[in-house]
C-alpha cells in the first residue's frame, strides 16, 4: 500500500516536472448562460462547452486533472464533470445554496460552502453524496485546502472572518477576524499564509495560518473578489474598477494596477506561475495576464456571466 502511494506520488511529481499529458486549460463557469467553457490556454481557444443548469458559479478542478466539480446554487447541486471526456458524469444534491467549492489534494473529499446555512458540506466523490457537515460562520463563500490536505479555510462573508477547519476531525479549530465581507480565499503553496479578498472594506487580509491571525492588510480597488499568487506577488480582481491589483507578498506594498475586462471575478495562476487568468463577468471573456511583465496579453470570449470562482485551472 505504502509502495503504491509512493509510486503514485513519484509519478505525479514526474508528470509535474516533465510536463503533463495535456495542455493547461481553464474551466470557466458561465453563470448566466448555464454552461462551462473549457479554454485551451496554449492555443487561447475555447475547445468545449458543457451545459450545466442551475446558474453554475463555483468550480474546482482536481489536482490530478481528471475531474471538475461545479456548484449550481439555483439547482442546489454539485455537478461532476469528467475533465478529460468533457462531459457531465454525476450530479449530487447538496441542498441550500452551494457556492464555493474546493477539493482535497488527494481528491478524496470535496468541500462545498452553503451560502445560506453557515455550513460546509463534505462530499465523498466515490459514493457521490454528502457525508458530513461542518459548522462555520455566516455566508461561507470561498474555500481553500492547504497543500498537505490537513486544513480547510472558509471565508465566512457575513461573519467578517475565516474559519480554520481540521479536515481529519471535520471541526472548526479557529476563527480569524479579517476585513469586511471576505469572499475569495487563497492559500500559498507552503500552507503558511492565506489571503482573503474583502468585498466590503476594499482590501486583502493576509493571514498567518499557524498563528491563526491576520498579520497584514493590503488596499485594493473597489469590491475585490479573489486573489491569485505568482512570482512573489498577489493578484486581486477588483470587480467595480475592472482592474487587477498587484502587490508584493513580502512587503505587501502595491506594485501595479492592470486594466482587464469589466467586473473581473475568478482569478488563478497557471502551474508555472507565468500567467494569471481572469474571468470578466460583464465582458463575457477571460483575460490573460503575463505575471512577469504585468500586462494583458490576450482576451478570450467565453459564455455569459463568467464567474470561475475557485481553482478553475486544470494544471
Amino acid at each position: 500500500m505504502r509502495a503504491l502511494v509512493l509510486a503514485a506520488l513519484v509519478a505525479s511529481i514526474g508528470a509535474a516536472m516533465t510536463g503533463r499529458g495535456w495542455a493547461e486549460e481553464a474551466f470557466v463557469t458561465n453563470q448566466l448562460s448555464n454552461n462551462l467553457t473549457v479554454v485551451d490556454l496554449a492555443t487561447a481557444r475555447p475547445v468545449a462547452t458543457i451545459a450545466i443548469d442551475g446558474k453554475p458559479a463555483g468550480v474546482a478542478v482536481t489536482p490530478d486533472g481528471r475531474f471538475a466539480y461545479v456548484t449550481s446554487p439555483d439547482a442546489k447541486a454539485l455537478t461532476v464533470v469528467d475533465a478529460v471526456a468533457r462531459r457531465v458524469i454525476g450530479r449530487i444534491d447538496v441542498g441550500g445554496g452551494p457556492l464555493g467549492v474546493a477539493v482535497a489534494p488527494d481528491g478524496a473529499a470535496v468541500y462545498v460552502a452553503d451560502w445560506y446555512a453557515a455550513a460546509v458540506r463534505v462530499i465523498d466523490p466515490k459514493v457521490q453524496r454528502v457525508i458530513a457537515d461542518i459548522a462555520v460562520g455566516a455566508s461561507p463563500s470561498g474555500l481553500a485546502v492547504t497543500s498537505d490536505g490537513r486544513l480547510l479555510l472558509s471565508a465566512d462573508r457575513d461573519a467578517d472572518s475565516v474559519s480554520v477547519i481540521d479536515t481529519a476531525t471535520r471541526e472548526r479549530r479557529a476563527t480569524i477576524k479579517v476585513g469586511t465581507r471576505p469572499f475569495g480565499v487563497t492559500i500559498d503553496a507552503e500552507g503558511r499564509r492565506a489571503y482573503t479578498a474583502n468585498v466590503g472594506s476594499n482590501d486583502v487580509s493576509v493571514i498567518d495560518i499557524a498563528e491563526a491571525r491576520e498579520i497584514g492588510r493590503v488596499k485594493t480597488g473597489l469590491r475585490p473578489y479573489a486573489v491569485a499568487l505568482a512570482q512573489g506577488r498577489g493578484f486581486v480582481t477588483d470587480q467595480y474598477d475592472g482592474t487587477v491589483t498587484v502587490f508584493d507578498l513580502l512587503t505587501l506594498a502595491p506594485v501595479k494596477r492592470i486594466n482587464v475586462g469589466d467586473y473581473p471575478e475568478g482569478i488563478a495562476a497557471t502551474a508555472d506561475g507565468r500567467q494569471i487568468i481572469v474571468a470578466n463577468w460583464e465582458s463575457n471573456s477571460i483575460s490573460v495576464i503575463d505575471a512577469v511583465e504585468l500586462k494583458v496579453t490576450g482576451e478570450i470570449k467565453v459564455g455569459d456571466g463568467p464567474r470561475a470562482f475557485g481553482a478553475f485551472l486544470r494544471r
Partner: protein
Amino acid sequence: MRTTLASVGAVVTALAVMGIAWAHGPTRQKVRESIEINAPPAKVWAVIGNFQDMSWLPPVTKTEGDKGNAIEATRRLTLADGATVDEELYKFDADKMTYSYRITAVDVKVLPITNDSSTLTVTPSADGKGSSLEWAGAFYRGFPNNDPPPELSDEAAVKAVSGLYRAGLDALKKKIESGS
C-alpha cells in the same frame, strides 16, 4: 394585487431584520440597454453628465446631493410617489463621457433589486452623425435567500431594471431631439 403587496411587505420586514444592505442572492444579473440619439455626443453628455441632476428619468421629481461629480459624490432621488433612492458615484470620466454609480439604499418595493451598480456611456454613433447612449447595470434580485417569491425573483429584477432603463433612454431621446 393586494395579496402581492402584502407578501412583499412581509418579505421586506424580514429583510429589514436580516440587514439587506449586503445580503444578496447567489446570481448577479446584468442588463444592458442602449439607444441611438440624433444629436452630437457632447449634447447628450450635457444632459446626463451632471450626477446631481437626474430630472431626465421620468419618475424622478427631485435630485439632492453632495460633492457634485466627485468620486463618492452622493445623491438622493425622490420619485413621484415619494419613495427615495440613495446613490453614490464611484467612477466619472468626462473625457470618455461615462460614469458609474451604485445604489446604496432602495426599498425592494420600489425596485426589486439589491447591490446595484450602473454605468452610463455616450459614444459617437456608427455613422458618425449622432450618438449612442448605453445604460448597463449589474445587480442581484430583491430576495437574498433561496426560492424567492415571484415578485422578488431574478426575472422580476431584470424586468424592472430593463424597464427603468428603457423608460429613461426613451425620455432622454425625446428630450434631446426635441431640443427641450
